[in-house]
């Protein structure tokens, strides 16, 4: 049964993408295809979760090739947990995007581009979670990255193109190091099957292991946005269209985290990177949180908390104890959901108020009570207020840290609570300014008027240069002035399209679907608390399996042989 379900989370969206492309000129049909595909993926994921949680991990040899020759797909508790959460999020965001698309027409998310790409992204993510082959993991990464490049630059506004360039180049570099890592693994162990690597790596001289290990960790560390490899993230994510940012923030970094978990618990079973990871975790938490405090745009602020909270997961992984890993897993699930939910809500805020800058927003609590509630609850959750899910994950991590008792572990505990406080401070600042402060009250802005302009400009999304020139928006970038007149000529044909896809000034309506999606995801985060019992149990079992790599190895090598 499992072996039939295993490939579906990848195949369904891929074929779906194909169909969507064939239906290139029929938006309605495309929307239907995506919705059906992702619903099917979610159903499959849930089924897998139930089955695997009951019967334990199992694997499938693609094309019935003997283990190690072909590619194995593996479903253990970790992968199905990740799969389920990601499926939930992708579906939720899709609904939001469809809602937005129906209102904006081709503007925000051009259907014929968005839907196929989005489906491919989903396929890539699912594959990353399910594959048992290191090189195939690389391919999965490339799939979701390529898709994310396209989604990030959707609409091709100046800001997005610039962000896109940073994002693409950094991702490429990390992928190259990933490839190098794979080559080294193949050179030393002669296989790409992760279960076999786990067995064979033990025979490799330790110091060589360390080299290979570090190369892989850096590759994944960039994708997971661990300080100091994280600076690219806050510059790239916030510029994208709301639903895109939401799914990126929620999901993509976590795929990197997932890869790190596999590296630490399966590929290299001696916790030799403990110190490195603990230090990285502490730095990531604190520097990220400070970054959040320094921001004045909600999207960017959230992106920094995103980086910061990756630190929690790394902390748990670094501790390596069952409690620690369990905490990390729960936190991953929580953080995927909460970040996505928050970014969707902020999307609604942006549509209502026409900006996400704390220098422009105000008085929302009075004018938009429901929206305020929809922001406040997940915001407090992010701030680690109990009994919301964020606190549950943290509590587990703190316990793990205290159990460990080492100096670095205590340092981690300290950094953990400090980060929690800073995060709360940051989101409360958002609440005070954007929701409480009356809209008419003039914000205090340091410095002379010229800077005030700069601030305002940065606050509002810098409109497409082409827009700036054609409709003469005041907020045009300095450099727009340069070749402006010329550019205008060059891009006149593009201009109207270009600026249409740039985030609009002033309020826009939000459709029921968008509210539904945001509301839905927020309630899912609440469900995490209500159903915390079973969920923490699953996380604990998954962690228990991870602390004993042989569970995975047996599942692949033995069951694989039976099939082969």
């Amino acid at each position, binding site marked *: 049964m499992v072996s039939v379900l295993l490939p579906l989370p990848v195949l369904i969206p891929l074929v779906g993408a194909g169909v969507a492309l064939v239906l290139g000129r029929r938006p309605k049909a495309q929307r239907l295809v995506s919705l059906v595909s992702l619903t099917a993926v979610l159903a499959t994921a849930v089924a897998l979760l139930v089955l695997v949680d009951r019967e334990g991990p199992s694997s499938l040899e693609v094309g019935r090739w003997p283990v190690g020759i072909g590619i194995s797909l593996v479903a253990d508790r970790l992968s199905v947990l990740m799969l389920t959460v990601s499926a939930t999020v992708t579906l939720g965001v899709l609904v939001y995007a469809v809602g937005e698309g129906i209102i904006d027409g081709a503007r925000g998310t051009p259907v014929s581009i968005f839907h196929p790409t989005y489906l491919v992204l989903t396929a890539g993510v699912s594959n990353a979670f399910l594959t048992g082959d290191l090189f195939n993991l690389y391919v999965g990464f490339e799939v979701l990255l390529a898709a994310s490049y396209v989604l990030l630059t959707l609409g091709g506004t100046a800001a997005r193109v610039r962000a896109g360039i940073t994002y*693409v180049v950094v991702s490429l570099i990390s992928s190259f190091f990933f490839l190098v890592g794979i*080559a080294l693994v193949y050179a030393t162990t002669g296989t790409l099957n992760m279960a076999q690597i786990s067995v064979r790596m033990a025979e490799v001289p330790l110091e060589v292991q360390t080299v290979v290990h570090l190369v892989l960790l850096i590759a994944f560390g960039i994708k997971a946005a661990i300080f100091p490899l994280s600076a690219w993230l806050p510059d790239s994510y916030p510029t994208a269209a709301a639903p895109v940012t939401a799914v990126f923030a929620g999901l993509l970094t976590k795929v990197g985290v997932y890869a790190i978990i596999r590296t630490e618990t399966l590929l290299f079973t001696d916790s030799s990177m403990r110190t490195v990871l603990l230090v990285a975790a502490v730095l990531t938490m604190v520097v990220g949180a400070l970054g959040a405090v320094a921001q004045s745009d909600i999207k*960017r602020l959230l992106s920094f908390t995103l980086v910061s909270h990756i630190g929690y997961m790394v902390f748990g992984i670094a501790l390596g104890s069952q409690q620690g890993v369990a905490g990390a897993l729960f936190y991953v699930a929580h953080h995927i959901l909460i970040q996505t939910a928050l970014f969707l809500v902020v999307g609604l805020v942006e549509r209502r108020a026409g900006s996400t800058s704390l220098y422009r927003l105000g008085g929302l609590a009075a004018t938009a009570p429901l929206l305020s509630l929809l922001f406040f609850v997940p915001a407090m959750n992010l701030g680690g207020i109990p009994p919301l899910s964020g606190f549950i994950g943290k509590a587990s991590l703190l316990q793990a840290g205290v159990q460990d008792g080492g100096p670095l572990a205590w340092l981690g505990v300290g950094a953990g609570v400090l980060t929690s406080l800073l995060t709360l401070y940051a989101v409360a600042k958002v609440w005070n300014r954007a929701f409480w402060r009356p809209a008419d009250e003039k914000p*205090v802005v340091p410095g002379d008027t010229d800077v005030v302009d700069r601030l305002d400009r940065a606050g509002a999304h810098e409109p497409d240069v082409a827009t700036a020139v054609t409709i003469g928006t005041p907020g045009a970038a300095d450099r727009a002035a340069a070749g402006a007149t010329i550019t205008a000529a060059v891009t006149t044909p593009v201009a109207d399209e270009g600026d249409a896809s740039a985030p609009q000034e002033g309020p826009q309506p939000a459709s029921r679907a968008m509210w539904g999606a945001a509301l839905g995801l927020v309630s899912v985060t609440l469900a995490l608390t209500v159903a915390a019992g079973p969920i923490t149990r699953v996380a604990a079992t998954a962690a228990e399996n991870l602390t004993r790599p042989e569970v995975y190895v047996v599942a692949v090598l033995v069951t694989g042989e039976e099939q082969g």
Partner: protein
Amino acid sequence: MSANAVYLVLIAALFSTGVYLVLDRSLTRVLLGVLLISNGVNVLILAVSGPAGGPPIVGVTPFEDMSDPLPQALILTAIVITLGVASFFLALTYRSWVLDSREDVLDDDEDVRVATQQRLEDSDSDVYGQEGTG
């Protein structure tokens, strides 16, 4: 197993030149750098795949003389992926040129803003502290 010196030198050269170009601000050069690095990576994979041999085609080369086919498959995959991404990056370059009539990597405005504001505060104003908390 022994390493092929030529490959090693080549790896060093391609990575060095590639990295140097990637650190440039001109998009064209960045992409050229990426291409050089990707070639370097491919050579690296080739290097770890053991000694040269006959083409891995049954009937043409006896099994024992074949070059290792697996790394070749990996490299082929890598080549194709790079082709796709490179085309996309070129499209980005074009778009960036259309919008800004320049093809450089620009610094992020918001980051610049935060830094500027930082400098301002050090010179200025107790009020921010209060607004910061209110």
